[in-house]
Structures are given as structure tokens and as C-alpha cells.
């Protein structure tokens, strides 16, 4: 009996591992190819011309880049590394890295779909004031935006102090002269040679990131086997601080794709909405597989600065959101439904 159970667990472990792996894989391939194309065809002078001179504006712009170039959190890493090498400031890249996987049309839409109708949910016959699609989408998007902008400002200060020593060799910005010469040279080459170079960059990035995706997915599957949804929901029912912290740790451990996590958050029916928002904002910025992948771009000092800044902010904002929502929602929010027929959620 016991060996059987252990065997079942191992099978479940591999099920979760492969599912995380193959879900992320196509997007890493595509991200790597975009990275290769950027490396080959995006002139550095253009990057320099487009980015605003003011650091703050450059960060604010980086954080909404996801609206134009939607990338999930796995695909965004190779792209960001190439942008760094092209001379995009580190702080703008961080803003794109952190906000991009949330502030983008695909993810915002899936958040809306997952929570649509939740505002009518009831508990023991009374409206339980959950957030509906619009509210959750807004809360998630805004919170992610603010967290990433503030974190990027911190990163900017750190960069002024430590410079490129924050970055891995492979992410170092290239010198202007070097790039210009290479770009000039590159243009003369036959198309096949240029494609050859794209494939070289793409495959290098693919292999590089996939190794760490694999390790991250293994870690996630390992923790996942010891944690069940029920255990979490049970623990967090009574206390909001505990609920927020638990959902944040869950986000780190589960390693869900930012497109899928809204549905999981919505499945915690009775959980207060602020805890769900904390889960939805933190997950795409920080989880086990992302940590492994970040190590390919950033040095530990930078990684931990980003993580600490993100964790503290998500916690504080979620608590503020909780206070605001629980006080204001019952006053200004009146779902027009028959309480008996309600309780519909995804």
C-alpha cells in the first residue's frame, strides 16, 4: 500500500513537472526567436532614439511595453536580455520584465474572463462582495504597474551605485562602437548568413533558458506534491494577513503561467479578493522557475533586490486594497441579483 502511494506521488510529480515544462516551452522558443531577430535587426541607434532621456519616463514606458509586445513571463526573459545588450537601460528592462507579463492584453483579458460574474457570489445566502471581472482586472493591472515602476526606480539607484556588475556577462550592454561596427558589417551579409546568426542567438537563448526552466519546474512540482489547495484555503479563511502571505507563497511555489493563474485564483471561491490580487500580481514577477531563469541575466544582488522590493510592495498594497475594498464595496456596490440563484462562478 505505502509503496503504491509513493509511486503515485512520483507519477503526479512528473505530471506536474511535464505540464509546466511543455506549457512554457513553446513560449520560450518564440521568445528566443524574437530575441534573435531583435539582436540581428534592431539597430541600437533606434533604441537610443526612442527611449526617453528622463529615467522615470523611460521606466514608466518600459512598464507598459507589454501592451504593444505581449510576452508571458517565460518568453520575456530572453527578449529582455537582448534588449539589455542593445543598450536599453536596465531600469526600463526591469519594468518591462516585471509588468510585461501582467500589463498585456492577453493576460488582462483572461483575468477578466476568470473573475467575470464573481461579484454576484454569495456566502451563506448573503452577497460576499467578491471582485468581479472588471475590478479584479483593474486591481491586478494597476498593482502590477505600480510595483514594477517602484521596483525599477530602486533598481535604477542600485545601478548608479554598482553599474554593470549587477549583470551576468551574457546580458552586458555592448559598447556603442562595437555595436555600430557589427551592425554595419551585418547589413552587408547575405540573408542566409543573417538567418544563420538569428538561429544561433535563438538556439543559444533557448538552451540556456530551458535548462533553468527544467530546474524551476522540478522545484515547483516538488513543492506542489506536498501542498494541496484545500490545505491553503482552509488555513487562510480566518485571517487576512495570513491569507495574503499564504497566497503570496503559493504564487511563488505554483509557478503558473500568468495566463492561467487567474483561473486558479478564482477557484478559491471563499478567499477574500485582496489575497487573490496578491497571488495574481506576485506570481508573474516571482516564482521558482522565474528565479532559476533570472540567474541567467542578473547577478544575485540584483535578483534579491528585485524580489525583496516586489514582495514588500505586493504585501503592503494588498493590505491597503483589502482595507479599501472591504470598507467601500458594501457601501457603493450593489449587485442586482437574486441571492438564491446566485453563487455562480467559474
Amino acid at each position: 500500500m505505502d509503496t503504491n502511494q509513493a509511486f503515485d506521488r512520483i507519477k503526479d510529480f512528473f505530471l506536474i513537472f511535464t505540464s509546466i515544462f511543455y506549457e512554457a516551452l513553446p513560449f520560450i522558443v518564440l521568445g528566443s526567436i524574437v530575441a534573435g531577430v531583435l539582436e540581428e535587426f534592431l539597430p541600437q541607434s533606434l533604441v537610443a532614439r526612442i527611449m526617453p532621456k528622463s529615467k522615470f519616463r523611460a521606466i514608466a514606458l518600459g512598464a507598459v511595453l507589454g501592451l504593444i509586445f505581449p510576452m508571458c513571463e517565460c518568453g520575456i526573459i530572453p527578449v529582455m536580455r537582448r534588449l539589455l545588450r542593445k543598450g536599453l537601460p536596465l531600469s526600463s528592462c526591469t519594468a518591462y520584465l516585471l509588468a510585461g507579463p501582467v500589463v498585456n492584453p492577453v493576460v488582462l483579458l483572461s483575468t477578466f474572463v476568470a473573475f467575470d460574474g464573481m461579484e454576484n457570489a454569495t456566502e451563506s445566502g448573503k452577497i460576499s462582495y467578491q471582485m468581479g471581472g472588471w475590478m479584479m482586472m483593474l486591481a491586478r493591472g494597476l498593482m502590477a504597474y505600480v510595483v514594477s515602476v517602484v521596483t525599477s526606480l530602486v533598481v535604477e539607484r542600485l545601478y548608479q551605485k554598482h553599474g554593470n556588475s549587477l549583470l551576468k556577462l551574457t546580458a552586458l550592454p555592448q559598447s556603442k562602437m562595437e555595436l555600430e561596427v557589427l551592425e554595419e558589417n551585418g547589413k552587408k551579409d547575405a540573408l542566409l548568413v543573417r538567418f544563420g546568426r538569428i538561429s544561433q542567438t535563438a538556439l543559444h537563448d533557448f538552451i540556456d533558458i530551458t535548462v533553468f526552466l527544467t530546474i524551476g519546474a522540478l522545484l515547483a512540482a516538488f513543492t506542489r506534491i506536498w501542498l494541496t489547495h484545500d490545505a491553503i484555503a482552509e488555513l487562510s479563511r480566518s485571517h487576512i494577513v495570513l491569507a495574503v502571505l499564504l497566497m503570496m507563497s503559493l504564487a511563488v511555489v505554483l509557478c503558473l503561467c500568468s495566463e492561467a493563474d487567474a483561473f486558479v485564483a478564482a477557484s478559491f471561491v471563499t478567499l477574500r479578493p485582496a489575497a487573490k490580487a496578491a497571488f495574481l500580481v506576485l506570481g508573474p514577477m516571482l516564482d521558482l522557475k522565474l528565479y532559476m531563469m533570472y540567474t541567467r541575466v542578473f547577478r544575485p544582488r540584483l535578483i534579491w533586490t528585485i524580489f525583496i522590493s516586489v514582495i514588500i510592495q505586493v504585501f503592503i498594497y494588498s493590505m491597503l486594497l483589502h482595507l479599501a475594498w472591504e470598507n467601500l464595496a458594501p457601501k457603493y456596490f450593489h449587485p442586482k441579483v437574486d441571492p438564491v440563484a446566485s453563487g455562480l462562478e467559474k
Partner: protein
Amino acid sequence: MAHEHHHHGSKSEYITEQVLSLSFALAIALVCVFLWFPYPVSGQGTDSVVYGRKLSIILHPKFHVWVLVGAVALLVMIALRAIALWREISILKSDAKCDHDHHGENCDHHHHHLENDKSGQENCHHHDHGQHHDHNHDGCGHDHSHEDCGHSHDMAPWRFMVLALPVILYFLNLPNEVFSNVKAVDLSQFGEVGAVAEKGVDFNVGFLQLEMAAMSQESRNHYEGKTVRLVGKYVGEDEKRFSLIRFKINCCAADAVPLNSVIMVDPASMEKINWKGYRNKWVQVTGRVHFLKRKDNDQFITALILYPDAEHKLNDDLIKVVPQDSNPYAN
């Protein structure tokens, strides 16, 4: 730079590493294609062969096409890279024949001229022979001036061991079914079952519909008493009841949420479930819909009540072992 000290070693190291990277990328791309490729799941040799994909066990159908797109894109990149690498190698070989030192020098002055102006570079090209231009970029130059030299030390064998894992798992045929380690529903929180009136047959109703139906009074009234047929995994060790479990996923198995149905034998019936024959297997269950109310709040759970009679025996008729569905998730 470090690589200058052992340039000869790093050249063959570079090629080995590139070939290894290519092979691993190829293996992963092929596994993706195999996972996607439909194969007959059941009904072989009959007219009604059911096709399924191995991917169905781990991913929501909407992601299947992405896996294929990713695999094809990866294959294209591999092909392009293989051509470029082949050319590089043949140039390296002809280089080696022609003038060995020249190559090392070339790599050196490449770094020099990057800091110099363009005219310096034109000079280099003067004394290059025809193909050298290409080599200049592919082998050493371009974005890889830091990288090739740097990352050849990065690409330790352990990385390829990590990459081999998904490929090995595929050949071990893992995973081959949805979650194995699941718990039965705790029935102590629910009320008792009364008599359920018969209200027609509807075999088109699925797991997800019934799960949703439990949410509102209207839909509960609509479905109550209907005879339906559900397929799911048998969980439980009891002669009178068990849980039928099916997972719902939105993207992948990591976000799976269990949908539970409680299955109970009509309290008036004397028949007993032969649970040892069913445990952890996929079964098809035919029974009447009933909704059980939780004692402490307004939530309901879907139950099927089994009414065995002379024509429909409990074991093998109302509960029947079936093969796992080609899409094992409810969606």
C-alpha cells in the same frame, strides 16, 4: 581574454558544444511533435477508432497547437543553425590547412578592430581570403565576441543532463495518466439522501455542467432526478459509495482543480459495490442526479444515486470500467 590561452581547445570545444546543443534542441523538438501527434487510444480494429494525443494528459487543448508551433519553429532554427555550423566547420578546416596561426591572430585582431574605426576593419578584409568574411562573423565576431568565448565554460555537461530529463521521461512513457493520488470527498459534512424521483434520461450531460448546476437553485431543480452517465476516476473504499473525480484545467495540469461527484447506491438497495475491482480505475457511472447540501452553508455538491434493478446490475452495468478518455480532463 581567457580564451586566448587555450584557443585550440576552445575551438573543438566550441564545435562539440554547438553540436550537442543542436542535438538536444532537436530531441526536444521531436518529443514535442510526438506528444502532439494523435494516436489511436481505443477501438483499434473497429470503425470507431478514438484518437488522442499524449499532450491531452498535461495540457488544455487550446495549448496543443502552440506546442506544435513551438516545435516547428525550433526545427526551423535548428535547420538554419545546422547549415551555418556546417559552413563554419568547413571554413575552420580549410583555415587549419592553410595557416594555423592566422586564425588565432584573426580572432585577436577582431577584438582590436572593434575598438578601432571602420577603416581598420577594411584593412583586415584585404588580406582575408574569400570566405574569411563569413567566418569572421559566424565563428568569432558579432554578438558572440563575449559569449562564445565566455559561455563555452558555462555550458557544463550537467546542463545537458538536465535537458535530457524531459526526453528520458517521454521514452519512459511518463506521465501516462492524470493525477493518481486523490482523496475521496468527506461525506460527513453533507446531509442525508432522500428518495430521488425519476425524471427522464439525458446522456449528454457532462461533468462540468453538473458541477455548475450545483451552484444555483434554478439549475438544481432542472437537473435533479435526471439519469445521466459520467466518466471519471473511481476513488474510495466503501461498499455503498465512492467519489468520481475528474479534473478541470484551464491551461495545464499544474492548475488542475478537482471536480467531485459523490456516487451512492440507493439506500433501499441491498447490493454492494465490488470496490476492489474499481479502485483508481476509470469508470462509467449511470445514475440519477441529486444535490447534497452542506450542513454548515449553502453550498451543494453533485451526487449520483444508483438504482440497480433486474436489468441493470450495480456492478458491471451501472458501474463499468472504461479506458481513460482521450481527453482526461473536463473542459
